C-alpha cells in the first residue's frame, strides 16, 4: 500500500450514486493532524453540507476509519459513520464495531464519502479500492440476517433492513450483521440514496512508524485493562457484556422504569446478566482488534442484548420475560432499527395510551414499526408524543430517546445528555464512568459541582477516541496518556495526551457549529420537564430527588463558558478561529 503517511492511507474515496462515479482524493496531511480520523474526518467532510436535509442527494454519508484502525493498537477496529440525523436534525454519528473499519484500511482507504441518489436500489462492492455498483433490487425488504448470508464472502458489510426502507426515523445501519451504527436514524440516509448495502475487502496492511513502540504501548494498555474490574473482573464486561451494568444501575436506583416515571424495577434481580448467561450460555465475541470481547452470542447465533436493550425492554416497558428481550433485540437487529429508541417509543406509547405492554404486544409493535405498518410510532417518541399532544411523555433530548441511565441519579449525566451534539446520548461524555463506576476516581453523583468542566473534557476525550479509533469502554481502564503513545508509534507524530485533547476540542466544536447552522441552541440543550419536577424511586438509603433546575441551568451556563460558546450555547467566531475552524456566526 504506497502511502506517504504512517497509520493513515492518505486516501479517501468519494462515491456519487447519481452518476455512479468514484473518485480518489488525498486530504492534506494538515487535515489529518488537525482532526485525526474517524469522527474528526467525517465531521470535516460533512461540515460544508451540514444544512442539507437528510433526503437531499447532496448530503454526504461519511464513513471513516482512524489512524489506529487495522493496527495492533487495542480496540482499534472501530470506525465512525456520520451524516445529518433524520431523527433529530442534529449531526448524526455512530462509532461502530465489527470488521468494516479494518477491511476499509486493508482496502487502502481512510474513508468513504457517499453522495447522490441511485435511480434504483444498489449495492456498492469495494475490493482493494476498486468500486463496483451492483443491482440490489432483489434485496428490497430483506432482513439483515438473510442479507448477511447473501453477502457472505464479500468481506465486511454495512447494510439496511426493512425499517430504513419503510422510513423508520430510528433505522440503523447494521455492520457485519450484529453491530449497529445506531441512534439518530442513519439507516435512512442509506435508504434515501437507494443504497441497500456496502461491502469492503482488501489485502493491504497498515504502515506503522515504530512497531516496537506500538508493542510497548499495547502492553501498557493491556495491563491496565487487566487491572480493571469493570472490563476484566468477574462481574465485568468481558464475562457478562455490558449487561453487567444492570444490577448496578438498579442498586443505585437509577434504572429507568415505566417510561422514567420510576427509577427502580422490583423484578430486576431475576432479569440480570447472570440470568441471561445461565439461560442462554453465550460465548464471547467482539469487534476486530478487541481483546475485551464484550459481545455475547449463543452457539445458535443468537446475540445477547446489551445493557441498554436489557434495561429498556424490561424495566422501561414493564416486561419480565427474558425471551421477549432476546426476541425484541433480534427483531430490531434484523429489521435494522435502534433498540433504545424502539423501546423508548413503545414505553412512551404505553404511557400516553394507558396500554400495558405484554410480551406479545412488544414484539407485535416492533414488527409493525419495522415493516411500515405503524408509521406513527416509526417517527420516534418525540414526534409521536407531539402528534398525540403529549410531548411531555417523550423522554428524549433534541428528539433522541434517552438511554438507560436516569439522570436524576447522576447529575453529570444529566448535563451530558443536555449538551450532547446528537441529543440524548450517554456516550458523548459518559459521566457514568466516575459518577457510578469510580473511574478514574469517584465523584459525587448528586452534585453539579465541577461537572461542567468534567463533561466538556470528557466530550473532547471521546471525540478523540472516536477519531483514533478505539473503544470508549477501554477508557474505563487506560487513558489518552497511553493512547498517545500508540498514536505516536503508529503515525510518527510526537503527540501527547494534551495534543490529542486539543484535536478533540476542535472536533467537538465543529459539531456545535454544524448544529448551530441548523438552528440548535440553549433551548435544545435541555431535559424533559419530568426530571425537574418528579422524584425517582427512593429506597435502601438512597434518595432520588427531582433535579434542581436552577443548579442545572448554572452548570449549563458554566459549560457554555468553558466550551467557548455564547450564553445561548452558540459558537463564537473568536473561539472557532482559535481552534482553526471557520465560523462567522
Amino acid at each position, binding site marked *: 500500500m504506497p502511502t506517504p503517511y504512517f497509520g493513515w492511507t492518505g486516501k479517501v474515496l468519494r462515491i456519487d450514486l447519481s452518476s455512479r462515479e468514484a473518485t480518489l482524493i488525498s486530504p492534506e496531511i494538515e487535515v489529518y493532524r488537525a482532526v485525526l480520523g474517524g469522527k474528526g474526518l467525517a465531521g470535516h467532510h460533512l461540515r460544508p453540507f451540514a444544512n442539507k436535509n437528510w433526503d437531499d442527494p447532496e448530503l454526504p454519508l461519511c464513513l471513516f476509519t482512524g489512524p489506529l484502525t487495522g493496527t495492533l493498537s487495542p480496540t482499534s477496529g472501530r470506525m465512525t459513520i456520520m451524516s445529518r440525523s433524520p431523527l433529530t436534525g442534529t449531526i448524526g454519528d455512530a462509532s461502530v464495531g465489527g470488521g468494516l473499519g479494518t477491511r476499509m484500511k486493508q482496502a487502502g482507504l481512510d474513508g468513504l464519502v457517499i453522495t447522490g441518489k441511485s435511480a434504483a436500489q444498489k449495492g456498492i462492492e469495494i475490493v482493494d479500492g476498486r468500486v463496483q455498483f451492483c443491482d440490489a433490487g432483489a434485496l428490497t425488504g430483506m432482513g439483515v440476517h438473510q442479507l448477511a448470508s447473501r453477502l457472505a464472502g464479500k468481506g465486511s458489510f454495512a447494510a439496511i433492513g426493512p425499517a430504513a426502507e419503510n422510513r423508520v426515523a430510528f433505522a440503523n445501519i447494521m455492520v457485519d450483521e450484529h453491530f449497529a451504527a445506531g441512534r439518530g436514524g442513519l439507516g435512512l440516509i442509506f435508504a434515501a440514496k437507494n443504497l441497500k448495502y456496502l461491502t469492503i475487502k482488501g489485502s493491504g496492511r497498515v504502515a506503522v512508524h515504530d512497531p516496537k513502540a506500538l508493542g510497548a504501548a499495547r502492553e*501498557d494498555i*493491556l*495491563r*491496565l*485493562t*487487566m*487491572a*480493571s*474490574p*469493570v472490563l*476484566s*473482573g*468477574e*462481574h*465485568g464486561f468481558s464475562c*457478562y457484556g455490558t*449487561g*453487567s*451494568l*444492570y*444490577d*448496578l444501575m438498579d*442498586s443505585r436506583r437509577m434504572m429507568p422504569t415505566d417510561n422514567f416515571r420510576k427509577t427502580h424495577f422490583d423484578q430486576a*434481580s431475576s432479569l*440480570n*446478566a*447472570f440470568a441471561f448467561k445461565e439461560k442462554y450460555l453465550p460465548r464471547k465475541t467482539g469487534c476486530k482488534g478487541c481483546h475485551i470481547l464484550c459481545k455475547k452470542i449463543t452457539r445458535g447465533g443468537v446475540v445477547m442484548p446489551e445493557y441498554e436493550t436489557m434495561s429498556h425492554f424490561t424495566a422501561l416497558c414493564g416486561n419480565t420475560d427474558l425471551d421477549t428481550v432476546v426476541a425484541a433485540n433480534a427483531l430490531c437487529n434484523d429489521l435494522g432499527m435502534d433498540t433504545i429508541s424502539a423501546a423508548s417509543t413503545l414505553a412512551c406509547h404505553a404511557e400516553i395510551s394507558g396500554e400495558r405492554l405484554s410480551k406479545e404486544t412488544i414484539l407485535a409493535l416492533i414488527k409493525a414499526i419495522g415493516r411500515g405498518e405503524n408509521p406513527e410510532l416509526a417517527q420516534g417518541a418525540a414526534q409521536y408524543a407531539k402528534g398525540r399532544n403529549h410531548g411531555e411523555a417523550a423522554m428524549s433530548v433534541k428528539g433522541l430517546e434517552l438511554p438507560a441511565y436516569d439522570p436524576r441519579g447522576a447529575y453529570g449525566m444529566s448535563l451530558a445528555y443536555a449538551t450532547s451534539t446528537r441529543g440524548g446520548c450517554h456516550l458523548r461524555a459518559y459521566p457514568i464512568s*466516575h459518577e*457510578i*463506576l*469510580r*473511574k*478514574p*476516581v*469517584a*465523584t459525587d453523583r448528586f452534585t453539579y*459541582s*465541577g*461537572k*461542567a*468542566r*468534567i463533561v466538556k*473534557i470528557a466530550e*473532547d476525550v471521546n471525540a478523540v477516541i472516536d477519531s483514533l479509533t478505539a473503544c470508549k469502554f477501554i477508557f474505563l481502564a487506560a487513558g489518552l*496518556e*497511553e493512547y*498517545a503513545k500508540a498514536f505516536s508509534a503508529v503515525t510518527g507524530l510526537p503527540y*501527547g*495526551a*494534551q*495534543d490529542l*485533547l*486539543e484535536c478533540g*476540542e476542535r472536533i467537538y466544536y465543529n459539531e456545535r457549529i454544524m448544529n448551530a447552522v441548523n438552528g440548535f441552541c440553549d433551548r435544545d440543550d435541555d431535559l424533559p420537564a419530568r426530571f425537574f419536577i418528579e422524584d425517582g424511586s427512593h429506597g435502601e438509603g438512597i434518595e432520588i430527588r427531582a433535579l434542581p433546575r436552577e443548579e442545572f441551568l448554572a452548570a449549563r451556563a*458554566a459549560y457554555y*463558558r*468553558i466550551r467557548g460558546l455564547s450564553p445561548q450555547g452558540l459558537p463564537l467566531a473568536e473561539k472557532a478561529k482559535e481552534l482553526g475552524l471557520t465560523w462567522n456566526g
Partner: protein
Amino acid sequence: MERLIAKYEKKLVDAGLADPGAPLLAGLDAELIFNRKDPATAELAQIFDGLHINSLLYCRPAEPYRTIVDYLSSLGRTITPEDCETRTFQHDIPVASRFHAPEILACLRRRKSVIIPGAGVIAHGVVSPEQAFVTYSSVLFACFVKFFGDYLAALEAGHSDPSGRPSAAFQAAFNRAVSHLDPVRPVAPVLAKGPFATAAQVYEALDQAGKATVDYRLVDSFFGNISYSLDDVLYISQTGSSLDELPGHVDPCPLDGSSCAGLTASSEFSAHAQVALTTTARAILHGHPKFSVLMSMRCAKKDCDLRGACHLKCPSARLLGDVPIVPGEVGSGPTGLCHTMPQAMRGNRAVMVHGHGLFAAGETDFNEPFATLLTVENASREAYFKTVAALS
C-alpha cells in the same frame, strides 16, 4: 471544589506526605481557585491554560520523601520505579529542571505528574483533586521503594566492586532519609472481635480496620483493599476507595455470582473471593507496607533469565520471612495475582505479591490480618537495616 481541595489538603498532611501549610491546590470549573495565596499561583495558572484539567497539586514533600525525591530527581530527567503500582498506572515519572511553566507543561502533557528538583512534585486531575492526591501519593511511595531498594543494591554491588558503592551524595541522602523515618509501631490496635453475625457488624469492622491500616501507614493513597465474608456474601471495598473512608464504599457481592452488583468492587475481588471460597479465612486485608514491598523485589539471582519479568513469571519459592512471595499483576487477567495468591494462601496466614503488597487473612476478624501486616512490615524493615549493616 473548595470542599474537595480542603479535604485533600488535610489528607496530605495526615498521611505524612506534606507539612502543614505546604500543599498548594488549585481547582478549575468555570473559575480557577487556589487554596491559598502563593507566589507560585501565577505560574500554575499558566499550566491550567496549557492543559485540559480541572485540578492541580503542587507540594514540597514532607521528610523523608523530600530528601528521597530530591536525590532521585538529581540523577536524570526520568525516574523509572519498578514497583507494581508505578508500572501499571504511572509508567515513569518525568523530572523538570526548574519551576518554569513551559517546561512543566511539556512534562504534564504526557504524564500525570512531574518532579521539580528542590521544589516539589506537581500532579494533576481531570475529574477531581483526588486524582492529583493519588498521583502525588503514588509518586512518593514509588520513590521511597526505589530509593531504599537502589541503596541496598548499590551496597551489594559495592561488596564485590568498590566503585559500585553508594556515592557520597547517596549516602548523605540515605542517612538523612533514615533519620526521618516514622518510628516503628510494634503494637497492633485492638480491633472488633469476630466472628461477625450481621452485615451491620461487618461494615463497622471493615471501617475500623481500614482506618487503622491508613493510620499505621501500611497503605499508600487509596490502594489496598479489604473484605469479609458472611453468609456466602463477600463484603469488599470498592475499587479506588480509600481504606479510611469505607462507609458507603463497600460492595456486598454474592459468592455464587448471581449478581453483578460487584462491578464496582475492588480489582482484587476475584482473589479475595477465591480465598474466601477455598480457605477458612473470613477476613482479608491487603496493604502496601513499603519495606515489605521493596524486600519482596530483592533477589539474589543476578543473572536470572527472567530479570525484568519477576512480577509475571518468577517460578522460585521465595519467602519474605515466613511469608511466600508470588508473582502476579493487578486484576484478573492471565497474569493476574488471582491465579497465584489464593493458592499460596492455603496453609499460610499471608502472601506477599512481588513488588505490590501483602495479603493477610484471618479466621474470624481483622485482628489477626492486621497484626500480620504490621509484623511482616516491621520484620521487613528490621531485615532491611540488618542487611544494610552487614554490607556497610
